[in-house]
């Protein structure tokens, strides 16, 4: 490959630092396994000097959560003109903000659960009780409450009883100032990676997620053995194709590139609902993307190397 030296950025200061470190380690090992020279690097005050003095051929931002997935670090990589794998900053910003992403994909004709995003300040100004009553009147139950920005199900709570809404709001606000409350759609939980190695985005096999406790929370995500995965999902060909179509459509609608993972729900009526998309999807030992890559008959290192090649070969953006 033309890119011979890659820097994997992992860690950072977000709540998902630990997950990011594990993702970074996994991808770095996969690349080393096929002979790519890889340096694993945290994001700190020495990063830019390192990139300037010892320019890599490509940077892989495997930073989860803020600054990684909100496009900020990628913005800086563009400033210093270092090629990187993944979506551009403006697309990241839209994708990382769940209500924005939902609005964009809804405009593209995809189904996404009805919801409302409100900052803590709104509840303070208008009073929590009337605002929550309005939410319940409008959206009904069950609901799910989550921080608008963030991943790994941190701060997410299902609400099946009106009395549980306040606690769920407080839990979400622990992770950020704005919370998304949306209708909880019952159904089968699936994840669909989308990759683009230069010939357009394509979906990899759909992964179905069946956590032991029924809730795909942090513990279920990162404890091997806590969740059963079906890869490919045990869906009809039509439904699998629809999931793939939705994931690719979301990827396109949000202007993403290289790699994304959409989290979807397939309800009993066969409707595929878009929940969120990740521009730096987890690559840990228990993450769904590596499972899907393997199910596609691909090697993780080989696929990432192809994505790196695409990133290195594409024209650099011009700054206005």
């Amino acid at each position, binding site marked *: 490959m033309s890119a011979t030296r890659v820097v994997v950025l992992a860690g950072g200061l977000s709540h998902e630092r630990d997950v990011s470190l594990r993702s970074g380690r996994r991808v770095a090992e996969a690349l080393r396994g096929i002979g790519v020279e890889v340096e694993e690097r945290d994001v700190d005050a020495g990063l830019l000097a390192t990139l300037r003095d010892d320019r890599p051929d490509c940077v892989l931002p495997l930073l989860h959560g803020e600054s990684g997935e909100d496009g900020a670090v990628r913005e800086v990589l563009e400033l210093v003109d270092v090629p990187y794998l993944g979506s551009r900053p403006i697309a990241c910003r839209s994708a990382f903000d769940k209500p924005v992403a939902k609005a964009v994909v809804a405009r593209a004709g995809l189904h996404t659960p009805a919801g409302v995003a409100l900052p803590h300040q709104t509840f303070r100004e208008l009073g929590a009780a009337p605002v929550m009553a309005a939410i319940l009147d409008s959206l009904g139950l069950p609901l799910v409450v989550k921080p608008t920005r963030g991943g790994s199900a941190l701060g997410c709570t299902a609400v099946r009883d009106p009395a549980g809404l306040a606690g769920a709001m407080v839990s979400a606000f622990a992770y950020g100032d704005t919370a998304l409350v949306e209708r909880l759609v019952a159904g089968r939980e699936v994840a669909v990676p989308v990759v683009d190695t230069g010939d357009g985005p394509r979906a990899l096999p759909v992964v179905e997620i069946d956590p032991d406790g029924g809730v795909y929370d942090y513990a279920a995500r*990162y404890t091997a053995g*806590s969740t059963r995965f*079906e890869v490919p999902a045990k869906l009809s060909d039509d439904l699998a194709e629809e999931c793939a179509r939705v994931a690719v459509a979301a990827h396109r609608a949000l202007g993403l590139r290289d790699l994304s993972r959409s989290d979807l729900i397939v309800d009993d009526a066969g409707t595929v609902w878009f929940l969120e998309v990740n521009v730096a999807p987890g690559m840990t030992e228990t993450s769904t993307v590596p*499972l899907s890559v393997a199910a596609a*008959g691909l090697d993780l290192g080989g696929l990432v190397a192809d994505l790196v090649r695409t990133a290195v070969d594409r024209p650099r953006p011009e700054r206005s």
Partner: protein
Amino acid sequence: MSEHLPRPRPSGSTRLDGYVDRYAARTRGMTASEIRALFSVASRPEVVSLAGGMPNISGLPLDVVGDAVADLVHARGTVAMQYGSGQGDPRLREQICEVMRLEGIDAHPDDVVVTVGSQQAVDLVTRIFCDPGDVVICEAPSYVGALGVFKAYECDVVHVEMDEHGLVPQALRDAIATVEAAGRRIKFVYTIPNYHNPAGVSLSPQRRPEILEICREADVLVLEDNPYGLLGFDEEPYRALRADEADGVIYLGSFSKTFAPGFRVGWALAPHAVREKLVLAQESATLCPPSFSQLAVSAYLERHDWRGQVKQFRELYRERRDAMVEALDDMMPAAARWNVPTGGFYVWLTLPPGLDAKAMLPRAVTSRVAFVPGTAFFADGFGAQSMRLSYCYPTPERIREGVRRLVGVIEEELELRETFGTAVPLARGTGRGYDGPHTDLT
């Protein structure tokens, strides 16, 4: 099949852990934890970590240690790198007896078993005494590392109230009576009498005979864990419980706080029959404690003014305690309460009513400050309103900055609770997962 989908391999179902059906039942709670993950951020220099209880060994004379280790390799390398006695190096055990003499203990080296930190001593004692379902009485709160051991051996922990003078005698009496009335067997009372982790308090000299008498009368052993006993700021070391009761007390000590934790050298002092069992348990666990570490610690004690070094540590920790307490006095909301420790590493802070320290931790990490939520120190889910603040490691300036950030977090949390009501039951959020033991929590 659609053009979107590459040709998949045959359908597969996986749990990503091929051993999942083989693990012992006791591993069921050992899952990933949001809290442990958040501590990953606490290791970054931007974060003021008031969480970890890492001894501050920046003042250690590394040249002296280096020379001692070099001489050890040169003069006794083949011994230091060979298996040793399961009970531990005889010379080190003599030196351990000299250390314990400072707390009034008159012990024979034959009754000492060297362990891999006192953490392993807790493990070995629990291993030889406790069957699943046996009751261990602990202070409320108690050391997270010990609670982890008791959980691993499937013991039932019963917590007993402490106040500013340590374990409350009447509460201990009541707890023993309640457990015995239920036909349950109490195997021992686990206590940290000096500069408690996490509560920061010490058992008063007046209460010590009473606690011993209660346990003697009830025929319950005492497991006295004393890693911080020599780290008092203003006073002579407390007299150990073991100094006044040889048969009913198993005493645990450690060089982790008075020298360095990296050597992992601790010990148990036990009645002769118990010592025999501990040695057998030690041999089945590790064959022998690490020879190299033991001889290095022994050489350090031999060649260095270790008492002077401990005095330096005391001063260092006193300065940090002062910084912490002054900052809390200056900035913390009036409704919060905390103790002023007279030694050791920790302040136990109780938040204003309605706040939950565990639920607050994500916001704290966002604000670049970390603490350990109180629930880590209870086996029964209590402690949500409290947190442990460690002052042992950061500089006084960083401690003050950490408290400033913490106060900001508490104020935001109070505002949130005011908005939604202080009686809001928290959602699942940070509830699941295995929170300890962990080097960030110990």
